[in-house]
């Protein structure tokens, strides 16, 4: 097979090369050399993006499994497998990201033997470990089907109800717990983002992101694979996304109202600009867009609204983890290029693995392929790359 050098392959190779260099710096010169983290800013971009955003962006898995298997919405069946694949890859890459961020990653297994039940981080760790295993089992039928192994699929089908309930339970726990991580820092996190409702917001936004991410990733893979778009499915997801965004927006409003913050959030300040950016992208623009029936019924409109809301929720996580601490720390934190490059490498690896998986495994229903070989491998699909590059700004 001849491998053609396309634009996105070149980008992929450059991203990987830079990432490997940063990996070298990380493990041979330490965290201080590779990042701009400091005693004033012990948690940086890797926690903010790789961990908080990574887990959030993988929420599509439990959302779609919940919709299709728990609520038995059969019409969404075709998006479950890609969503589970995205989630599985997302969690694997989150763990890879963690290996970069932890100061002593070789002791990560200590989590299993030295347990502190009072720690939210411990709960997140246990849930993520268990849920990744659940996702792995949910993903396995793809592999078995590929090799025509019928018996193990039957075994998995037998325990499917347990897997589904466990997966959703674990997701509920750790998606919200990522917000609970910050509950112990009322004096450090800026009041725009510190609220006792943080766990609820983290869970609520994860559901909205799960829907948006499914729209994004279905559209993206249909472009890359030359598959026909299942418009009715997307329209249905878009409707659900609109409802989820409204619920999230109303809860956020209620929180600011309840805490008497409405006047403050309207006053211009450094934090307010970031909050406005977040609220505009996660709520105002996508809700406005999706309120038009024309947008809700068009693949491009749905795609645009989803990507904008994803950008908004990524801003939210970065606000909570980085911007919200700058006032306390008394200094700004700007990630070093090596921090970005490690993250980019992980994201690029995710896209490449997704592409490989849909190529070689029956992720998408067979009859929906258009019978022509797709020549181009797109490591980083066009629309995704700019969105991801801006994610850290």
């Amino acid at each position, binding site marked *: 097979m001849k491998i053609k050098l396309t634009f996105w392959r070149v980008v992929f190779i450059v991203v990987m090369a830079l990432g490997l260099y940063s990996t070298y710096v990380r493990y041979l010169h330490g965290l201080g050399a590779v990042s701009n983290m400091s005693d004033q800013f012990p948690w940086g971009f890797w926690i903010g993006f790789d961990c908080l955003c990574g887990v959030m962006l993988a929420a599509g898995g439990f959302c779609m499994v919940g919709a299709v298997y728990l609520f038995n919405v059969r019409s969404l069946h075709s998006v479950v497998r890609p969503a589970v694949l995205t989630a599985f890859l997302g969690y694997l890459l989150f763990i890879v990201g963690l290996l970069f961020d932890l*100061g*002593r990653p070789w002791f990560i297994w200590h989590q299993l033997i*030295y347990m*502190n039940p009072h720690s939210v981080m411990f*709960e997140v760790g246990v849930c993520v470990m268990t849920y990744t295993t659940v996702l792995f089992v949910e993903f396995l039928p793809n592999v078995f089907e590929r090799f025509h192994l019928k018996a193990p699929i039957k075994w998995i089908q037998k325990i499917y*109800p347990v897997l589904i309930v466990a997966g959703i339970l674990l997701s509920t726990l750790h998606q919200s717990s990522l917000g609970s*991580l910050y509950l112990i820092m009322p004096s450090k996190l800026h009041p725009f983002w510190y609220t006792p409702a943080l766990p609820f917001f983290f869970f609520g936004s994860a559901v909205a992101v799960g829907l948006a991410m499914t729209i994004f990733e279905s559209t993206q893979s249909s472009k890359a694979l030359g598959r026909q778009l299942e418009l009715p499915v997307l329209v249905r997801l878009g409707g659900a996304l609109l409802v989820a965004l409204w619920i999230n927006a109303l809860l956020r409003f209620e929180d600011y109202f309840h805490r008497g913050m409405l006047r403050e959030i309207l006053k211009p300040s450094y934090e307010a600009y970031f909050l406005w950016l977040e609220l505009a992208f996660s709520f105002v623009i996508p809700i406005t867009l999706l309120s038009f029936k024309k947008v809700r019924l068009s693949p491009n409109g749905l795609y645009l609204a989803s990507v904008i809301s994803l950008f908004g929720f990524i801003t939210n996580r970065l606000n909570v983890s980085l911007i919200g601490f700058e006032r306390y720390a008394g200094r700004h934190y700007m990630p070093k290029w090596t921090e970005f490059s490690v993250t980019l490498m992980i994201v690029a690896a995710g896209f490449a693995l997704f592409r490989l998986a849909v190529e070689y495994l029956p992720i998408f229903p067979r009859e929906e392929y258009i019978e022509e070989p797709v020549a181009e491998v797109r490591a980083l699909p066009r629309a995704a790359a700019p969105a991801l590059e801006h994610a850290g700004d």
Partner: protein
Amino acid sequence: MSKALLYDSTMCIGCKQCEQACATQNKLPYDDAIAAEERQSDHKYTVVMTRGDKFMRRLCMHCEHPTCASVCPVGAFHKTTEGPVVYDVWKCIGCRYCMQACPFSQPKYEWGSLNPRVRKCIMCPDRVVAGKQTACAEICPTGATKFGERDDLINEAQERIRQNPSTYLPRIYGLHEIGGTCVLILAGVKVEEFGYPASEKIGDTPTPEYTGRVMERIPDFVPLWSLVLGGIYWISHRRQEVAEAESLERTRGRKNTQGGAQ
């Protein structure tokens, strides 16, 4: 009964002998350049800051309800019965949640190391267990840093304020802050000017309570939510079964009536 340190900044002369004794005790380098650093770091667990003729010491507060011990996923921090909050390096995985969460930002990190440790004052636990004072209290020439029982030190601090109300601000920093600390501070100026978090900002609530309110619900939440999810699963699939059975019956019924008409 826990041990504590009382630091009276009005008695401090800024000689920095506590810094040096701390460095010696913890086998850290100490020279003029390090003495001039006005900031705590992985090689400086305590610092004496100078603002004009005022001095202020900073060190780990050894909270009664330590945030670091509460957040650490592997339990690498714990509060000893004698008072010190100590760190078990062999457990640490390096997540730095302690640093992120500590209201006093006391844990520091070995950013340059390939096997980094969290560094902070551990209140000389070996000496304390052996019935000795901490190194800093022992060396202090003016008695500005005093080691003793926490209750005794509180009484003494209150007595000092009572006798010299013009010298001191009428408060003991650390008495109630986030549930009380084992480092108590007396001062003539606001400690906030030296970087301590304001009392009203950190409050009197022990920080582990903020997460405890959520964490304590989990044991109830898990079975309840599993039941709800399982119930939804059962109902939605049962409905489908019923619908399928009904449609089957309907077609069979139609066939029967057709058969009857013939």
